[in-house]
């Protein structure tokens, strides 16, 4: 079965990013497909490559990036939500005249249409949030 996953909250502050990760991993382990993971609202903050969580705690960006690499996941960060919150890749950085970028290469920035498209293409949309 084909799943789409929407994540509405940022890492650590809420468990949403953790739960979505555990769900995605379990679904993939069972042979299901994840059509797309869409990071919206504060969920976009998951995509930072600058986080340094304590050594005895999980690193959520790294966990998602590893899962994405293993299973060729499409992880999309909403561009509008990202702009509000200071998440940028190199293109966004240049387009907005900023001097730095912070997005991990496992994630790509795109529009809200990607969420709708995921809702259409997937058999089930799972929403994790607050």
């Amino acid at each position, binding site marked *: 079965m084909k799943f789409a996953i929407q994540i*509405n909250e940022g890492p650590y502050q809420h468990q949403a990013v953790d739960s979505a990760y555990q769900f995605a991993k379990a679904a993939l382990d069972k042979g299901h497909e994840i059509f797309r993971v869409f990071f919206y*609202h504060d969920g976009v903050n998951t995509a930072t490559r600058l986080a340094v969580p304590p050594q005895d705690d999980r690193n959520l960006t790294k966990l998602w990036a590893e899962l994405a690499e293993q299973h060729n996941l499409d992880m999309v960060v909403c561009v509008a*939500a990202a702009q509000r919150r200071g998440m940028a890749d190199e293109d966004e950085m240049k387009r907005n005249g900023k001097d730095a970028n912070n997005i991990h290469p496992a994630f790509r920035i795109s*529009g809200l249409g990607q*969420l*709708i498209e995921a*809702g*259409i293409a997937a058999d089930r*949309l799972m*929403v994790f949030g607050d």
Partner: protein
Amino acid sequence: MSEIKKFMYVNRKAPYGTVYALESLEVVLIGAAFDQDVSLAFLDDGVFQIMKGQDTQGVGMKNFSPTYSALGDYDVTKLYVERESLEERGLTLDDLLPLKYEDEDDDWAEKDSIKLVSREELAGLMEDQDVLLNF
């Protein structure tokens, strides 16, 4: 992807205190381009999103309530409001924005976008969806 799915945006949170109302409205606007069967549900504190007379000047935030009035132009014409949620909050339909659309199948007659439904009816409508987007 030519299949038409039933999408319902489920709004349960008040505006301004959190960003969900604003950013879910942004999804609705983008989603309108996809020619799906779209509806919005307003229940619990979600009914506060479409209160009329919103004036955000004092809080320095953007008043996005006028955008709800534009939904009809995007062919988003089914806005279900839960009666019990209004009553629990001491509100009536008169407290809400008078949201309208022009029905192209009925000689462009102006009609109400807001459909007042009971909790039981709304639960039934949710059961009839393919995709529920929660914010």
